[in-house]
């Protein structure tokens, strides 16, 4: 899929040649800026190929404000967006020793056979140097001309975007994230061309920041969503995405054109489900088998990543991307007679939904199976997540479900924090200054997925040590013995672990009094948001649900001198509670941290920080036991 969003991520790509000097983020904003840029787009009809195309003429001037810097230039392209020409000059001259490289885009060792970039370094050799870069490109199918991003990693002092739309072309332009920016839009009619010219004038657009755990770029940066609907030109009628049905028709045609070897798939499906006696178990077996045996490698070949690989090919290769894995899951289930379907979905990385029919809306494919009136969604790329459990990135999202000639628009079931759980129960006694006893853990949902991922994806000879270090926080005084776990390859059930504990010097003794720091883990301790530097909301990976109980036996001859006060913060987004209860023989500490909403908006940072400070203060309370 052509994804102009790639360009934003790509600006950090390292290119051979002179690398840009390392400068702090703030310095980069000032050192290089864009004094001028003109991006021109025009819908044209190509009589030779008998199709509507979009011609792009993209010119950007970069200038170096203080000292020299080499910046990476990268323009994405693919089979459906071709680069016709690239030219660049620095201070009026074309450098002979720099050649644009046309290569495949690589991201974290996953490569996209369809996504490519034209990249080269642009050395701005002195203060005031100006580099002018021009790309001419053609989008061969208006469906793939989905967005125009207006911002850059550099200050855009002045940018003009023009979109020339002939009256025979029907397209909607939606302005996204314009608020708070100086962006003026006007429309003029070109009588001679019988076309509307939309002009966007942008002034002083601040540089994009890329922060960890921030929402995706479609939530943040100003851009124009281009919704190509249809065209009537030269006696031709082209239907793009007038409606969601059109979009579905197009996507469905692509996937329907893939012909599988049904015999191979059925044989495999029977092999996988051998021994299963009921339908749900069979469905689960298929799902877990694909999760466990098909290696995720993104080979997005063909029609810019919308056409899946043949299911039997995915099976043969033992690898696939999300489309391939979804297609295989569906094909295996169908071969056993189940009502399995492909589904298109946009993860939470994307701000839109199917109310705006566009290829920009989805970036993922999963499978659905309808069984006894209930639809179960199966995302095999989420290794270790169980059947009927849904990852944060898709939960609650709109999903376009295959349904013959018509589509079904549904939603992935919304999850609450209760889907996930990181539970720990400790039953302890004090021996000398050691804490001894027994501990049990239970993990569910995305917490389970996280633990299993670490256990299974690391080297097996290091896995036990790694788990031990996780459980004891790399503190060898927290000595764990007799560790047992539930089956680590069974994703259908919760993961549990049990062990004996001897925590050396786990309590402090002053005189005869014991001072106990009862919470060993203190999750979210000091987890504050940087209110001065952080620009965007903070999104946690999923809705955390942490419950910890510690039951501490009061030593004989002792009583509770100080029981720390309970603590509670509850609001719509999160709940933090700490509770102490005592009986004659025991003190029980119970902590619960629930993120009901995995997203903390910037407006909430101050409150969040204040609440975290209170949580810290609660963590830093000690239980005191004195001799009677």
């Amino acid at each position, binding site marked *: 899929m052509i994804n102009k969003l790639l360009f934003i991520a790509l600006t950090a790509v390292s290119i051979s040649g002179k690398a840009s000097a390392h400068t702090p983020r703030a310095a980069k904003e000032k050192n290089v800026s864009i004094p001028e840029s003109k991006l021109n787009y025009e819908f044209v009809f190509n009589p030779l190929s008998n199709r509507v195309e979009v011609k792009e003429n993209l010119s950007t001037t970069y200038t170096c404000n*203080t000292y020299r810097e080499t910046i990476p230039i990268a323009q994405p392209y693919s089979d459906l967006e071709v680069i016709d020409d690239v030219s660049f000059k620095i201070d009026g001259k074309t450098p002979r020793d720099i050649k644009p490289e046309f290569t495949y885009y690589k991201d974290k060792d996953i490569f996209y056979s369809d996504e490519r970039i034209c990249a080269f370094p642009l050395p701005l050799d002195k*203060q005031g140097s100006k580099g002018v870069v021009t790309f001419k490109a053609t989008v061969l199918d208006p469906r793939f001309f989905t967005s125009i991003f207006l911002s850059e990693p550099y200050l855009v002092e002045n940018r003009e975007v023009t979109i020339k739309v002939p009256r025979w072309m029907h397209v909607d332009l939606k302005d996204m994230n314009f608020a708070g920016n100086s962006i003026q839009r006007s429309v003029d009619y070109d009588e001679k061309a019988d076309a509307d010219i939309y002009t966007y004038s942008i002034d002083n657009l601040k540089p994009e920041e890329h922060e960890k755990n921030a929402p995706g770029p479609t939530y943040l940066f100003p851009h124009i969503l281009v919704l190509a609907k249809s065209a009537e030109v030269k006696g031709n009628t082209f239907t793009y995405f007038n409606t969601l049905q059109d979009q579905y028709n197009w996507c469905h045609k692509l996937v329907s054109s893939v012909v599988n070897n049904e015999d191979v798939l059925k044989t495999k499906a029977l092999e996988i489900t051998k021994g299963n006696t009921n339908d749900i178990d069979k469905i689960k077996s298929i799902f877990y088998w694909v999760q466990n045996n098909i290696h995720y490698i993104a080979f997005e070949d063909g029609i810019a990543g919308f056409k899946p690989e043949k299911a039997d090919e995915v099976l043969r290769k033992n690898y696939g991307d999300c489309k391939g894995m979804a297609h295989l899951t569906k094909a295996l289930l169908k071969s056993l007679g189940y009502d399995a379907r492909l589904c298109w979905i946009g993860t939470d990385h994307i701000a839109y939904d199917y109310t705006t029919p566009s290829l920009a809306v989805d970036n993922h494919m999963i499978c659905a199976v309808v069984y006894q009136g209930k639809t179960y969604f199966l995302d095999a790329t989420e290794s270790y997540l169980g059947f009927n459990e849904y990852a944060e990135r898709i939960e609650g999202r709109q999903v376009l479900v295959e349904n013959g000639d018509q589509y079904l628009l549904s939603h992935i079931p919304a999850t609450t924090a209760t889907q996930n759980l990181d539970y720990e129960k400790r039953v302890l006694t004090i021996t000398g200054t050691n804490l001894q006893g027994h501990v049990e853990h239970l993990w569910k949902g995305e917490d389970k997925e996280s633990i299993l991922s670490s256990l299974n994806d690391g*080297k097996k000879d*290091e896995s036990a040590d790694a788990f031990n270090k996780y459980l004891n926080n790399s503190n060898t005084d927290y000595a764990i013995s007799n560790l047992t776990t539930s089956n680590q390859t069974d994703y259908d059930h919760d993961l549990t672990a049990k062990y004996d504990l001897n925590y050396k010097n786990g309590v402090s003794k002053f005189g005869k009094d014991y001072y106990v720091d009862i919470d060993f883990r203190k999750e979210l301790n000091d987890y504050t948001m940087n209110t001065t530097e952080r620009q965007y909301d903070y999104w946690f990976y999923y809705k955390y649900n942490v419950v910890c109980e510690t039951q501490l036996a009061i030593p004989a001859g002792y009583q509770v001198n100080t029981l720390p006060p309970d603590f509670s913060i509850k609001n719509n987004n999160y709940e933090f509670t700490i509770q102490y209860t005592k009986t004659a023989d025991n003190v029980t500490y119970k902590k619960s941290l629930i993120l009901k909403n995995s997203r903390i908006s910037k407006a909430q940072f101050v409150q969040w920080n204040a609440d975290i400070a209170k949580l810290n203060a609660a963590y830093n309370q000690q239980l005191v036991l004195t001799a009677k």
Partner: protein
Amino acid sequence: MKTLTLVIAAFLCFNINAFAQDAPPADTTYAHKADEIQKKIWGEKVPEFEVKTLPASMDKESAVIIARSLNVELSSNNKLKMVIFSSSTTRTNKVSTFRERVKINDKSSLDAFSTLEYQKSLDRTKGGFLTKYVNKKDTYIGAKIIKPSGQEIMINTGEEVLTKNESRDKQGQLAIPGLQVGDILDYYICKIELVENNGDEDLTKQQKDENEYAFILADEYPVLSYNINFKFNSKINVYYINANKAPDFKITTEANGDKTYNVQLKDIPKYVDKLWSEPFRQYPYIRISSSYGDKFLNLLAAGQLFTYDKNAAKIINAVKSYEAQLAYQGTDPVPEKLLKRQFGKEVKENPRDTLMKFLYDALKYRAFCYYDGQNLDVTSKRGRGTARSLYCIAQLSHMLYNLNIEHEILLVAPRNSGSLDNFFSKGDVEAMIRVKGDKDVYMAFDDVFTQYNEIPANYQGEEAFLLLPQNHAYTAFTESRTKIAVVEASKNYVKTIMNVSLVPTNMQKVKIQRTVTEGGFMRHGDQQNLVLMQNIDETYTDMLGGDDLTKRLPKGVNAEKLSTEYQDAFEKAKEDLPDNFKAEIVDEFDQEPQEFKDFKVNSNGLTGIDPVFSYSGTFVMNNYVKKAGNNYVFEAGKFISTFNKADEKERTRKIDIYMPAARTLTYVINFTIPAGYRVKGAEDLSHNQNNETGTFSVGATVKGNILSIQVNRIYTHNFEKVENWPKLLEIMDSFSDFTNQKVLLEKI
């Protein structure tokens, strides 16, 4: 795939037919060649590559390299080329075949081995009809999977994806289809290269590096069998070394003079004990290199030193190269100019120590504060650069002789490379000068923070060749060996003084006013992060009477403009400083400071002998004070940094310990006891652990409202034999235990 791409980078692959004939076969298409190579390799019946089952004990490993082989065939000859006049070029055929058979036991190794990346073809041929210099590389791959059932599945390499597809540059990637956990993967990468040039001097650095091979006999995975085979034609000079008891090559010579070097290795273990280790000292390894042409010229030009010979003649040959450099290398005019400017015509009237120090600093100034105009990165990254010691010492030696200062030249094998007896190439040694006197004076060029009379930490305790020139023309030397002294722990120190108080408005937070003073080896790391290049430039310019920046730029540039750019770059680099100070605190305390202010460098440690580097700052920290009813628990131990005690596995060590330096770390914590409280448990803080490897001691006193805690951690040596590991652990355990200690602030 990390492993495989590393392998590709390390091991080149060349033409199988190098020795057969000059004329190419009739059909030279890529596909035909690939097919030919595949038949040859899969047709070879090598027992190690037939293994299909492994002992059950190996199942616990992430992967097992059942067999690995590298076969390199290199042939170089002179060829006449007709241009206007005839000239001789060197034509080199090189074929390298790397093959590996690996058992995949988990998802991690499946990830690691599931894709192959390679330079499929690269054509850098230059010139036209008569003047063409061929430079071509082609890579051929093959793979097969052996399932647990024994079934062999040949992989269709046609499923590759070309990530670059230019006519003269193709890069490929292949995801191995059908590979699963439990399978055996057998694959090969064969590279065929034909290069024509004007001899080894014409080779690029990359080409020269690709002619050098290093095999450390330890690996990420266990390797059951490893066969290394090199074949060279008679015109190639071969140099190799088998170090730390690595097996020797078996050398055979054919009738035509071609020589084969072969070694068959078994059961190569995994790397162990990564903390404080030096692989080139502690694992067996083999290095082999080759060159073509005149032997002596090759010695100088390529930096290759000698043919392998176990006796002392080898070591003497190794030194000859540097002696020759001393003879032919001229001197840079800058230090001499500065010397004259500083001392006038009567330079030699000045005390010897003064002159030596000036010259040393001037050479350093020349190395670090003259700018190439290309790299404007003057952030902390620049402070991590190092000078070329061999070049600088040669310069300094000439200058010292001009001042009639007799001196010795030391070629030392730093501990991060092979030992002196395993000297292989000039890059393995660093140079230093020693001037004998009442107290010996050392001059070494390492990073910019290395000072006059400072021995870099990785030279200390190591052996060196000692060269004493017999004349100032460097035509004769007295050669011997010596050992570099180890600087005592007290000279490599960090002293941290922290004045700590509780924040009145929130007594669970502490305010820390911290001053850190560092000397010797211990200052370098923090200097690199906290001393700006601008400070360095200004300090040395001022000290040495150096030129304005405009005169320290390359010729032919607009000096005024470039100088302005550098000045701007200096200013920009200052913006890094607050983050660098903060990062230092995070590193030390394992959490972010709050209300961080008043941070500054008190003394930049750039001048003088045994200079002191000092910096300070004030900040607030959380989590050091716990409320306990009316009282508070003060976590005194946490102030001296977090430290994870060695776990069970780490407590058993098999190899010696190479510490970064003998060093002393002192912490003084002056804690203001809040009014209305008294300290309980201070006496329990005191501790003393002492043995031959080091000391950990704590003393605590309460005077008035100040609780003073002094902590000393000393590592006495920079090297310990593995037998002393338990003693070292005692020191480390004591330190770790202390970090958990607390005192009570009891309400009066």
